[in-house]
């Protein structure tokens, strides 16, 4: 099942990137006055990629249903999944949006649209790309979820623009070489425009990728001690190779294309085409490793995975605080509450080892909190003592950093 899920996830990323890349190439990279056949070919690839994405999404839904039902999913189960879960609703909305885009693509192709219409179509493709973030690891991040989802969306978008754009560039140059008849400046113009796109995309994907690595991996040992970390390292290796080839293209092939005369132009184009093809293959390898990453537990969860069915907290002496501090801001001392839901607010200094807090009411552990506010549910009437203790990421090591307050529930 995992291999099929990985393949589906990777194919989905590749299809989306190629879809966006071909549209961007048709709308933004292709110089005016180029043969309509090339534009039509780009649109044909874009439409095929979109159809592939929609079909792979259906396969992914069936795989998900298969896991939930432990057998081929019934229509009832699928309907419940699509209507009652956040990920199901996102799937449904994305599939409907994708089908509408398919209609748009048919219209654009039939009317032989160009210019602003193609640019608009490329912009309409963006929500389809970024919506993947709404079912990614980012959406399950407990703290700063909106920031994590935004970073994931930005990363997906930048990667799709770079990787998908490369495939489109390779497609265009190869198409022009086979079909012939392109203006001599086609390769130069497209490479120049793509370079500008890459110069924006690459820094964006590096910074958003670094942020995601930080929240999903957390530490260097996690990078090489967990499956997630190892696959991420593999992805980074592919990325470094791709970036190196891109740099060679930018600093050597691009000037060569611009200055080549008739005799050398063909050889320069051939060389550039090979390098761009290699870059595209590496891009596909990156998308494949990304597909696997979406299925692996993030490295920061390794501590939970290794202690499956964990003893959540074992009584043990509090460890040195090492700079960690916690201060309860709500409830206030002796505050009286009418209901059983007690709003909790606190300030937390994590120090060297602190990660989150455990909340105890009258000495009994009742929950953990990573964000600095939450709700204590189901507190019985009476006078209670709330104690917060700072805990390390392993959920076991409680630090000598705590605060205590008494409150009353009527």
């Amino acid at each position, binding site marked *: 099942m*995992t291999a099929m*899920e990985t393949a589906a996830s990777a194919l989905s990323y590749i299809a989306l990137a190629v879809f966006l890349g071909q549209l961007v190439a048709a709308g933004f990279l292709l110089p005016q006055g180029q043969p309509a056949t090339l534009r039509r070919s780009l649109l044909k690839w874009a439409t095929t990629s979109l159809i592939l994405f929609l079909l792979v999404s259906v396969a992914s839904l069936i795989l*998900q249903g298969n*896991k*939930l039902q432990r057998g081929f999913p019934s229509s009832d189960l699928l309907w*419940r*999944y699509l209507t*009652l*879960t*956040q*990920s199901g609703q996102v799937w449904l909305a994305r599939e409907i949006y994708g089908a509408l885009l398919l209609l748009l693509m048919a219209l654009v192709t039939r009317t032989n649209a160009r210019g602003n219409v193609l640019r608009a179509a490329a912009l309409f493709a963006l929500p389809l790309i970024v919506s993947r973030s709404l*079912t*990614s*690891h*980012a*959406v*399950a991040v*407990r703290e700063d979820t909106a920031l994590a989802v935004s970073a994931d969306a930005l990363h997906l978008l930048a990667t799709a623009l770079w990787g998908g754009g490369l495939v489109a560039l390779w497609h265009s140059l190869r198409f022009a070489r086979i079909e012939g008849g392109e203006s001599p400046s086609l390769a130069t113009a497209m490479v120049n425009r793509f370079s500008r796109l890459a110069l924006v995309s690459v820094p964006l994907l590096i910074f958003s990728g670094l942020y995601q690595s930080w929240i999903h991996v957390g530490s260097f040992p996690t990078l090489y001690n967990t499956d997630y970390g190892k696959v991420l390292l593999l992805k980074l290796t592919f990325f470094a190779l791709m970036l190196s080839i891109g740099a060679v293209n930018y600093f050597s092939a691009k000037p060569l294309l611009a200055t080549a005369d008739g005799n050398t132009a063909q050889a320069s184009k051939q060389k550039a085409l090979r390098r761009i093809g290699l870059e595209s293959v590496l891009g596909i390898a990156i998308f494949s490793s990304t597909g696997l990453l979406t*299925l*692996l*537990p*993030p490295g920061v*969860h390794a501590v*939970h*995975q290794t202690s*499956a*069915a*964990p*003893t*959540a*907290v074992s009584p043990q002496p509090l460890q040195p605080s090492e700079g960690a501090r916690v201060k309860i801001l709500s409830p206030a001392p002796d505050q009286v509450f009418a209901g059983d839901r007690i709003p909790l607010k606190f300030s937390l200094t994590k120090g060297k080892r602190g990660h989150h807090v*455990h909340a105890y009411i009258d000495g*009994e*552990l*009742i*929950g*953990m909190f990573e964000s600095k506010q*939450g*709700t204590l*549910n*189901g507190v019985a009437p009476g006078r209670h003592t709330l104690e917060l203790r700072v805990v390390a990421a392993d*959920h076991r090591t409680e630090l000598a950093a705590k605060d205590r307050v008494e409150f009353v529930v009527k």
Partner: protein
Amino acid sequence: MAHAYPAVSIPNNDATVKEPPREVRIQFTEPIELAFSQITVKGAKGEVVSHGKVRQVANDTLAIDLLPLAAGSYSVEWQVLSVDTHITDGTLRFTVATK
């Protein structure tokens, strides 16, 4: 292949409690989808001692009510679907001490 794990459970995993709990509550490491998540508590002979529907008391916390428990050991079987689409399951245990 799993993502949401119990971070805190009440009763604690492997704990021995003096008073029989009236519910089991599990806080997971990620927000979860109630519609495809379940908790079943069983006694030593496999009899189900939980009753009613699983409740979602916070986006990452589930609870289920228990029948009055006698002294003995109990297992808490859980399966959840996290919001990032992954399914996890596992078993926690606790014991009610003899008075």
